[in-house]
């Protein structure tokens, strides 16, 4: 690796755009910029492929794949197609006997092809091995012209009025600096810039914890839903198991729960995972016969927001901007789409030549900021309502008046409207139930409240 260390003036940075992180957000942005012939550099601390959580996609990713001419690559990679998602009820008193085996009931399945919008280009999306997927996308960015460094960690960013921003990197204990006009933080939950600039706010409501791994030989059955993402509800509140097909034979399993459940019980982590799976005896029996392929991995403290998404000389995309909760598989879609929206503002500023003496200002990202605010607010509201009363979600999916609107949200189509009417409708019902202690569903209200958390 060789970096050009010549000191350059403000009008001539080494790269127009410097991107921290080569995950889905970083490589998508690098691809869009390269397509527009804007020079950019990506610094990725790991050497790919590396494992990563977040394997179930939603259809809104297809729009990005298509624009980047990446759909064919996705097809060739042979990732399992995801035609829908299914929710199964846990075997406790509330849900045990009445609906089992009777469609449409506990296994609520949603096929995305009912929803025909510009967002859903195909009627399916993908389940991905993130090691492979992230590597493919990063290589794609490189092929389109981005400069990519792997194994190079960004340590610090320096902003000053009279010079271009500088990105300090470290590799094998060697430190270098690179000048850019714009710094994009795509470092995921490490939130390099958000932390450095003190923008990060921990979510006051969500404090979830996840433990996950891969299994070989789990029998997913032979039904049409065998390649769906499955969510299995657990009898502890706000807790569930994901089941995501990674290949013909490999399946990813993860338990998500409130962090307090976990720490309160003080159990060994693996034991906790298996105890949770045990509450779904059919899954448990089959999973016990499968072979665990990887060590258990844990994720925690992943729900947060930022005071700002952009500022003078910088912008945040993907998880580096915000993450809430994995329940609706929105993370990679938000990463890809936020990078797409960011690229629009960046490209426009270059095309219109309206930089402020060669500098990017917060005002250049006005559109990005408002679109991302809207999208993340809608996701947040949807997720909150879901955790507050998930039976309502199930009900709306059954209801022909709402089904398509819900599918639209589930597809990742959240950026166009201020608040989709279906969310307002759900909110209204939840409020009524909250206010009426005698309501038959009042006792079902989850302890995660739907308080608005609007950091940005």
């Amino acid at each position, binding site marked *: 690796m060789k970096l050009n260390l010549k000191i350059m003036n403000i009008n001539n940075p080494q790269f127009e755009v410097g991107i921290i992180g080569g995950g889905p957000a970083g490589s998508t942005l690098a691809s869009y910029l390269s397509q527009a012939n804007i020079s950019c550099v990506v610094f990725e601390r790991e050497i790919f492929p590396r494992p990563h959580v977040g394997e179930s996609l939603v259809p809104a990713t297809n729009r990005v794949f298509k624009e980047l001419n990446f759909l064919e690559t996705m097809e060739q990679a042979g990732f399992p197609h995801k035609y829908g998602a299914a929710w199964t009820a846990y075997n406790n*008193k*509330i*849900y045990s*006997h*009445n*609906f*089992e*085996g*009777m469609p449409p*009931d506990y296994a609520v399945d949603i096929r995305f092809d009912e929803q025909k919008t510009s967002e859903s280009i195909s009627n399916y999306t993908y389940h991905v091995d993130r090691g492979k997927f992230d590597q493919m996308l990063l290589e794609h960015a490189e092929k389109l012209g981005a400069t990519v460094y792997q194994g190079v960690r960004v340590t610090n960013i320096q902003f000053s009025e009279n010079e271009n921003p500088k990105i300090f990197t470290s590799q094998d204990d060697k430190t270098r600096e690179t000048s850019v006009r714009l710094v994009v933080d795509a470092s995921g939950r490490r939130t390099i810039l958000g932390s450095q600039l003190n923008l990060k706010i921990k979510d006051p409501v969500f404090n979830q914890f996840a433990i996950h791994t891969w299994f070989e030989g789990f029998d997913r059955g032979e039904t049409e839903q065998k390649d769906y993402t499955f969510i299995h509800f657990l009898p502890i509140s706000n807790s569930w198991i994901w089941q995501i097909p990674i290949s013909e034979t490999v399946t990813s399993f993860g338990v998500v729960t409130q962090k307090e459940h976990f720490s309160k019980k003080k159990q060994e982590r693996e034991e906790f995972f298996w105890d949770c799976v045990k509450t779904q005896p059919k899954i448990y029996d089959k999973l016990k016969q499968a072979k665990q392929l990887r060590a258990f991995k844990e994720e925690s403290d992943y729900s947060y927001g930022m005071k700002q998404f952009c500022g003078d000389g910088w912008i945040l995309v993907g998880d580096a901007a915000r993450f809430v909760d994995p329940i609706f598989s929105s993370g990679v879609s938000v990463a890809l789409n936020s990078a797409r929206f960011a690229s629009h503002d960046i490209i426009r500023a270059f095309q219109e030549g309206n930089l402020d003496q060669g500098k990017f200002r917060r005002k250049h990202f006005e559109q990005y900021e408002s679109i991302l605010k809207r999208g993340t607010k809608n996701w947040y509201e949807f997720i909150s309502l879901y955790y507050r009363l998930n*039976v309502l979600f*199930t*009900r709306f999916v*059954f*209801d022909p008046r709402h089904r398509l609107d819900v599918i639209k949200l589930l597809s990742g189509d959240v950026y166009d409207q201020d608040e989709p009417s279906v969310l307002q409708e759900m909110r209204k*019902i939840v409020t*009524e*139930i909250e206010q*009426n202690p*005698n*309501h*038959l*569903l009042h006792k*079902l209200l989850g302890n995660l409240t739907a308080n608005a958390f609007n950091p940005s």
Partner: protein
Amino acid sequence: MNQLSIKETVKNYIQQEFLYDKPELELNDDSLLIEEEIIDSLGIFVLISFLDEQFQVKVEPQEVIAENFATLDVITSFVENKLA
């Protein structure tokens, strides 16, 4: 529609929808539907839609309380009052 037919209609529906896998369970006019979890949380929504479709009865959120849904008898008089 007379009383028998409202009650019978609702009863048949509950049997088909919620007790299809429990033929041995006897459903009486005073069986505690909610308390004994014959109808679960999702079932309440399902039943409300049924009442709407079948009798054009609109159930307001503040009416979704045990007083109106506890038993078959109670549901029947609730529907009758709405239709009166």
